């Protein structure tokens, strides 16, 4: 919990700052009935950032900021110019078109760059969690200055928003004040978009103000309500967003809060308050339940914890047993080849025996593949079979497996035996290694006897790998190898190496 609070403290501060100025601006915007202008300006600022991105400026640098601001200022000019006294073309339409154009332009431009999509995503969803103290400080100072500016000239600003007719009548230069308004708007939005992303900015502008406007008529009450609601929802939203995207989570929080506000408003106006209260209570409980369920629906089968879950979504742990009975391995190379892909290692091993018996050289490739089987028994059988088939084209595969140092001592033994049996000198050093250090007395025994046969050394087969005779034989073999390794040649008729 503490770690959570620490991590989320900075974003919470950022949210507070955003709430402060956005609520005020939002109330203005709602009074002017041009809701769209927020998101249009935000999108235009985003378009500016995209252009900057294309020109090589990283989204968080100064360059990108000035680009955004420039675009926003331009938009501000356009909006202030298009507000006419007698609205023939409703300003909303203009703003809507501007928004659509800006979005389309951003998409097109982002398409040019290979990382454009991510960049767009970042702009939209924002990354309020990664806000730095420097950014917060900068934004706080800027917004305070702007707030001061609006405080000083509040009467004028309120007049042009709430009572434009009055303003026109008094001969006020509405266009100029409008421009100033949209300019401050643009500055705020640009800075906010950098921190919080387009959608969240729009939310902060609109949601708390709508909430406030639903209940109160005078500016002070609206401001206070909006600030309270914004702060509360930011806190709750951030709390729930510990390991989810914060922006969208806060937005959902706003939506829920608005819904609740709407219900409360309906309640307060209803004729049967107790009944309505009851209904609201049930609705709230159900919503909470639905929200919980919704969270679960997004993470089926696993609890999203703080730690990263590398297998999220994968159906990892195991399906029921493949309860196929072991089946007969059929005759015919085709059937044997199929059996090589059976789930049971026994069947695969038997298939290898069958393929070896078939003598068909085309099966060498299948046997070579079986050298990489997951089961050590199958690998061993494949290695043995390849050696017994006496076909030298198997050598490369065998030597490669040999070089890979299989973890099973018997597989290593068989590989070495087969390589040597096919006449390649590379098998001998491996056999010597197994003879000396192989795990399990039996492997050592077999290695010694195989080597003895290949070197055509005189003497009976060794019986006891730990005995004196085995040591003597090993020394003899080592000597034989050391002496003749450059000059040995394979005699296919006898199956031995001779000088």
């Amino acid at each position, binding site marked *: 919990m503490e770690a959570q609070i620490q991590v989320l403290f900075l974003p919470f501060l950022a949210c507070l700052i955003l709430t402060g100025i956005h609520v005020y601006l939002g109330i203005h915007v*709602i*009074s002017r*009935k041009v*809701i*769209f202008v927020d*998101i249009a300006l935000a999108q235009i600022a985003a378009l500016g950032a995209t252009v900057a991105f294309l020109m090589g400026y990283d989204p968080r640098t100064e360059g990108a900021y000035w680009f955004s601001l420039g675009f926003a200022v331009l938009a501000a000019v356009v909006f202030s110019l298009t507000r006419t006294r007698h609205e023939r073309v409703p300003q909303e339409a203009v703003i809507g078109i501007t*928004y659509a154009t800006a*979005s389309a332009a951003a*998409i097109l431009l982002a398409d040019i760059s*290979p990382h454009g*999509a991510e960049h767009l*995503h970042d702009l*939209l*969803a924002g990354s309020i969690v990664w806000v730095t103290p420097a950014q917060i400080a900068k934004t706080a100072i800027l917004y305070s200055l702007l707030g001061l500016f609006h405080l000083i000239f509040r009467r004028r600003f309120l007049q042009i928003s709430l009572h434009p007719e009055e303003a026109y009548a008094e001969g006020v230069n509405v266009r100029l004040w409008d421009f100033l308004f949209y300019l401050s708007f643009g500055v705020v939005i640009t800075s906010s978009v950098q921190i919080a992303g*387009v*959608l969240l900015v*729009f939310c902060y502008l*609109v949601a708390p103000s*709508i909430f406030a*406007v*639903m209940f109160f008529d005078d500016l002070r009450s609206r401001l206070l309500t909006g600030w309270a609601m914004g702060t509360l929802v930011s806190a709750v939203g951030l709390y729930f967003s510990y390991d989810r995207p914060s922006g969208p989570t806060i937005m959902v929080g706003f939506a829920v809060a608005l819904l609740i506000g709407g219900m409360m408003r309906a309640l307060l106006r209803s004729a049967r308050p107790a009944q309505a209260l009851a209904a609201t209570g*049930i609705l709230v409980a159900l919503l909470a*339940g639905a929200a*919980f*369920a919704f*969270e*679960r*629906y997004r993470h*089926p*089968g696993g*609890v999203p914890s703080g730690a990263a879950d590398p297998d999220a979504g994968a159906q990892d742990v*195991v*399906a029921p*047993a*493949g309860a*196929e009975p072991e089946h007969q391995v059929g005759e015919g190379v085709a059937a044997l080849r199929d059996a090589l*892909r*059976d*789930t*049971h*290692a026994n069947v695969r091993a038997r298939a290898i025996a069958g393929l070896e018996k078939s003598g068909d*050289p*085309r099966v*060498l*490739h299948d046997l*070579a*593949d079986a050298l*990489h*089987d*997951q*089961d050590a028994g199958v690998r061993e059988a494949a290695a043995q079979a390849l050696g017994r088939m006496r076909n*030298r*084209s198997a*050598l*490369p*595969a065998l030597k*490669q497996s040999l070089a890979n140092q299989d973890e099973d001592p018997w597989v290593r033994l068989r590989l070495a035996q087969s390589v040597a049996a096919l006449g390649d000198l590379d098998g001998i050093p491996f056999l010597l290694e197994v003879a000396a250090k192989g795990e399990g007395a039996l492997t050592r025994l077999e290695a010694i006897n195989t080597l003895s046969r290949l070197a055509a050394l005189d003497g009976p087969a060794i019986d006891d790998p730990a005995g004196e005779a085995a040591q003597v034989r090993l020394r003899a073999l080592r000597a034989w190898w050391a002496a003749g390794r450059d000059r040995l040649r394979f005699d296919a008729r006898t199956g031995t190496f001779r000088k």
Partner: protein
Amino acid sequence: MRPMGLARAAALAAAVMLPEASAQDEAPPDRREVEELKAQVQALRDQVQALQQQIEALAKGSVAPSPPAPESLPQPTLAPGQPVAAGPTRSPGLMNPAISGVFQLIGNTSLAGRDDLNGFDLSEAEVAFESTVDPYAKMNLYLSFPADESPEVEEGYATTLTLPASLQLKGGRFKSAFGKWNTLHTHAFPTVERPDALAAFFGEESLTNDGLSLSWLIPNPAGLYIDTTTEVGTAREGVSFNSDSRALTWTEHLAFFLPAGDNATVELGGTASGGQTGPTESLLGDLDAAGLTETLEPDDRLPSNVYGLDVTWKWKPLQQNTYRSFSWQTEALLSRRRVQALDPGLFLTESTVGSAGGYTYVEGQWTKRWKLGLRYDLSGFPDSEVDRLWGASGVVRFIPSEFQELRFQAKYTRFNESAALRFGADDEDDTRLFFEWIPVIGAHGAHKY
């Protein structure tokens, strides 16, 4: 800012935000992805070519190195037990729900000569479906086909499987979690018929709700199973909550499971339920007799509450649990409701009526297939403070396998005078003998403990 404008603005805002949001989900294939796909296809082409070369080389007998497997292609090795062919090979009906069917053949006779209930009855057939809906929920559906009435849904509910905080939500039509016996289906009763108290308080159908039930497993440091269930819904039953106004009925049930050693458990439960009820039978009868059915409208929304307490002790020795067991279950019910009556001056008067009832049932098993049970019933009636009855029954259960059961029950019931009138009985007592045969087919799900 008028509400309509507000709504419009909100709608417009939604229209604006939706495409943005959905654009994120359905992002068109990234150029980068396409490049990667192209690279993969090229690698595949290379490998195919190399393989073809190798085959030719093998055919000629010369040596060609096997091509190294490119990193992007998966290795064709198999983990033991993983089927090669995708998809289940066992049966085509693999996604079908588990279906089972049960019926009860009941034969009974009354030694007091109340022949109206004599004879054999295929009293009820039930078809049950159970399956998981999706990773989040499972569903149970029980269709009941009573002997001479139209078929109905006895229970049909979905249960969530993935809610957090040890919660489970059930929605649909389900038997209310009132006490222990109320949730049982007729074929799962230990005896042939339900205890008189339950029949008197909830009618012949048990307390069934159409609604929602939220159950919470309360975490506690002792690691005990403590469950609280809250239900809200429209009750479908004929006695305690039978208001026509479709008012909501709520039920709250708290259960504690306490282990008593390795071999036994004790369960303690408390239930409270509240809702509304309409005029009683006797009031309607009186109004009819006085000819006042049109003029006087009895209240249809009288408050009614039923409370219950249950204690269950189950002993099943671990090693021999199929051969020996013992259980003792007791439930007590209390009803308080407002009742209207027609007073001699032809006015509707109201009063609060309280009544109580309960049962205690003891069952023992001494061999794999036989169980013996004894039950004592005591019951008042919710709409009357004077009617009362008590009963005692003994039941023998023969269970040849998990899928079949025969029951023989003898029941002695004694009514007091007013209760006898209610049942239209001449005598004040009755002895009945029951026989029941219950076969089950299909994949009947596991029963709760």
